[in-house]
């Protein structure tokens, strides 16, 4: 008789999560001729488009608009790709979970890890771009790991909740994509709403309820303006994210044995 203790089980699943993340990343690189070089080329292409568009064609070559935009896009892209991919994970693992009993929570976690590894590549490129443009490493860089961690908490919370619900409401997938686009325009990727004239204070406060507004602004503060991030906002985001993670985990565990019965 082989009964695993909770700790043994935990480590077995952890090993599985890491190996599957590695396998998914490797499979992605094996699919193309250039392999993992695409993790570098793709963001370069993506960033170049914005550079040409705004930096050259719209004449923002000298001011800091292009770096401003690219920081926002990079940070947003991490959040967006995790959420839109994670919402499909439990549904997508349908075949697997009909054959083996696994905690379903591992599927969104694997996705978050894969997308985060890819983000780290893009972020390194962003740093290189910023340094080339003359932005220097400053004393607030030590806050970057904290910013990463807080955003990872936020991503995990949203991803778990989405992954938990989408199997029952697959129609939600279409809504998620559009809501993400809407939030994208409300997250200050393109412009700093707080600096616009004629904005009511009340609207400004509403605007800052969006956690991504705060995170993107904090990243910009650290990377471009040598300013400290807003610790109070980060603390609030962390608390709500932890609650969200708890809720998502609760939902997934509640439906642990229902998911294998749901039609894909």
């Amino acid at each position, binding site marked *: 008789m082989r009964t695993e203790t909770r700790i043994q089980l935990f480590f*077995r699943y952890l090993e599985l999560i890491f190996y599957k993340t590695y396998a998914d990343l490797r499979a992605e690189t094996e699919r193309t001729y250039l392999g993992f070089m695409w993790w570098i080329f793709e963001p370069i292409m993506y960033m170049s488009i914005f550079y040409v568009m705004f930096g050259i064609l719209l004449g923002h070559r000298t001011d800091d608009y292009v770096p401003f935009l690219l920081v926002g896009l990079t940070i947003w892209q991490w959040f967006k790709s995790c959420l839109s991919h994670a919402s499909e994970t439990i549904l997508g693992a349908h075949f697997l979970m009909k054959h083996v*009993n696994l905690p379903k929570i591992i599927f969104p976690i694997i996705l978050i890890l894969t997308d985060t590894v890819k983000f780290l590549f893009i972020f390194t490129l962003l740093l290189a771009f910023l340094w080339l443009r003359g932005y220097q490493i400053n004393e607030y860089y030590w806050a970057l790991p904290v910013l990463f961690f807080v955003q990872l908490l936020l991503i995990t919370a949203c991803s778990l909740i989405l992954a938990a619900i989408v199997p029952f409401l697959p129609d939600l997938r279409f809504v998620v994509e559009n809501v993400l686009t809407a939030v994208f325009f409300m997250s200050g990727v393109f412009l700093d709403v707080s600096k616009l004239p004629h904005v009511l204070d009340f609207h400004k406060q509403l605007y800052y309820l969006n956690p991504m507004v705060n995170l993107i602004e904090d990243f910009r503060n650290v990377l471009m303006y040598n300013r400290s991030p807003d610790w109070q906002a980060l603390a609030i985001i962390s608390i709500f994210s932890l609650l969200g993670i708890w809720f998502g985990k609760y939902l997934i565990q509640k439906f642990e044995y229902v998911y294998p019965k749901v039609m894909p």
Partner: protein
Amino acid sequence: MTTEIITNQEVQQKHELIMSLKNVGLSYRRKRGVFGEEFWALKDVSFDLYQGDTLGIIGRNGVGKSTLLRLMAGIMQPSHGQLINTGYQASLLSLQLGFIYYLSGRENAILSGMFMGLRKREILKRMDSIIEFAELGDFIDQPIATYSSGMLARLGFSVAFQVDPDVLLIDEILGVGDAEFYQKSTKVMQEKIHSNKTIVFVSHHAALIQQLCNRVVWIENGVSRMAGDTRTVLAEYHKFLHLESAA
């Protein structure tokens, strides 16, 4: 509804009880949405599984045999009734589980083994015997996208065969691959079944059940009609089939 015939009571008392099902039922929702009607894949199933048993589950197509295995594997939970597992690990024999097309045979063996409950180091330890049994040689480090369907089947079987749960649940599959490998895989599988392992074997093939199993549960329309020693249950099953076809 179930008639439990205990002919070899002494044998059963000597062996430990592994799993016990009492009036187990399981329902799915047939359609999406609020108005999806319920569909009972299993209605009332009762039987016990003892250590060292080779238990056959027989029944016609679509009577809920595969669902029953999923219940026993802990993948689903009964909608009503009771399933007691006294603490053993039961898993389905699944071939090519979690295989990723673009990865090598070796990586897929590790991944698939881990999905089925092995630790990475356990798979690495058995890698040589997996490669040897699958007759893959140097191909093991090639992406499985380049494999023939026969090679893929051999790799899938060799990995799945390494997984050694307390209770092995087999859904129809005994052997796979071309004629030669089919014989080889069927042979090792039958050896495993004949060993002292606890096995649950699902089939609609009475001859196979007769050959392999010491006890049989007969499922009809989601209900366990009878559980007991192979000969008695199969005889009743045949009688039933005969009546059905006559009617």
